[in-house]
């Protein structure tokens, strides 16, 4: 087995092939939110690592190309903000108020639940960036000294939750405004949620992706201070 996974191209082929299979499955089954391709790929690749006993460090070395591309991809998030920003700019006071209030709710519930149930500091720090789009969340987790994989997985779960129950939950509490629906989903479930509401309407999708980037910017500045206060 080790002869196979020691081939330098093993990690990248495994990751790309699993991702393609997950995409195919996702499209084939009518895009169910629960089968988000990234979640399926993470589980699939993790299972192969467990079964073959391939060390995680070796896998990371083999997929360095993907890690390297994360930087420019994060910078590229500027483009959806620029594209959808002017629609939000005319409602700036409402948008800012929602970002601040929503951010405060998100942080206090996370901290409250973790502290009340006695989770350790490390876990709390990894849970803080969970509403932030992964590329930015990664660097926040890193700055907080949190476990990056844990932060990524919690972020993925948040995104999948948003795609699966987000729109229904918003309808339940009678949020019908397309702009508000998009914004709420983008703020809580970043990219995965955004791709879900984009199917609902382009207005929602635009507001969602702008909210995702704005929320990431706000959290980048806020979370280090919060982490210092509570952990």
């Amino acid at each position: 087995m080790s002869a196979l996974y020691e081939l330098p191209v093993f990690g990248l082929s495994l990751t790309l092939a699993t991702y393609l299979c997950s995409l195919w499955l996702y499209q084939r089954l009518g895009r169910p939110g629960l089968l988000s391709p990234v979640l399926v790929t993470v589980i699939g690749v993790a299972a192969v690592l467990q079964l073959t006993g391939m060390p995680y460090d070796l896998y990371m070395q083999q997929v360095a190309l993907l890690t390297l591309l994360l930087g420019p991809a994060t910078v590229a998030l500027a483009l959806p903000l620029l594209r959808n920003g002017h629609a939000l700019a005319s409602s700036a006071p409402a948008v800012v108020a929602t970002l601040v209030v929503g951010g405060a709710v998100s942080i206090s519930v996370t901290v409250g639940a973790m502290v009340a149930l006695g989770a350790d500091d490390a876990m709390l720090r990894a849970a803080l960036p969970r509403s932030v789009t992964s590329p930015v969340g990664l660097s926040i987790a890193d700055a907080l000294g949190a476990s990056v994989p844990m932060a990524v997985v919690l972020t993925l779960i948040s995104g999948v939750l948003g795609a699966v129950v987000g729109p229904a939950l918003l309808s339940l509490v009678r949020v019908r405004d397309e702009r508000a629906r998009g914004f709420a989903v983008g703020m809580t479930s970043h990219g995965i949620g955004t791709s879900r509401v984009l199917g609902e309407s382009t207005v929602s999708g635009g507001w969602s992706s702008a909210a995702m980037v704005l929320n990431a910017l706000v959290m980048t500045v806020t979370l280090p201070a919060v982490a210092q206060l509570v952990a």
Partner: protein
Amino acid sequence: MGRMSRAALLPPVLLGLVILLLAQMVGLALETLLGLPIPGVVLGLVLIVVLGLLRPTRAVVRLADPAATPLLQHLQLLFVPPGVGIVLELQNLAENALPIALAVGGSFVLTLIVAGLLLQALLRRQDRRRSAADGPAPGDAETGEATV
């Protein structure tokens, strides 16, 4: 014009990638030089936003698009490797399952509802005030704009 047509001869995806990488590099350099607490990649993101808002540099941002679009389309592929690292922490995850479920689920549900209701109320008030101020409802115009 002349500059644009010359740039058009270069491979667009590579050109876009170089623009994004340069912005990231400037961000990382700023982070180290100024000792800022904000990650360099995020500074790079802000730099591109600023360049895109200023008229003379807007064209540079447009050139980044051919690389940005495919990168963002498959953004999720890029965090498979860090996500797979969870295999090292399955124990930790299982031990903290309850607080995690409550923190992640609870803050997700509450934030979603609060943000949705609040923004809807604020936008409605704003639309009403604007349509009272000037005849045709500007809410519709805005929605049209957002679809672009």
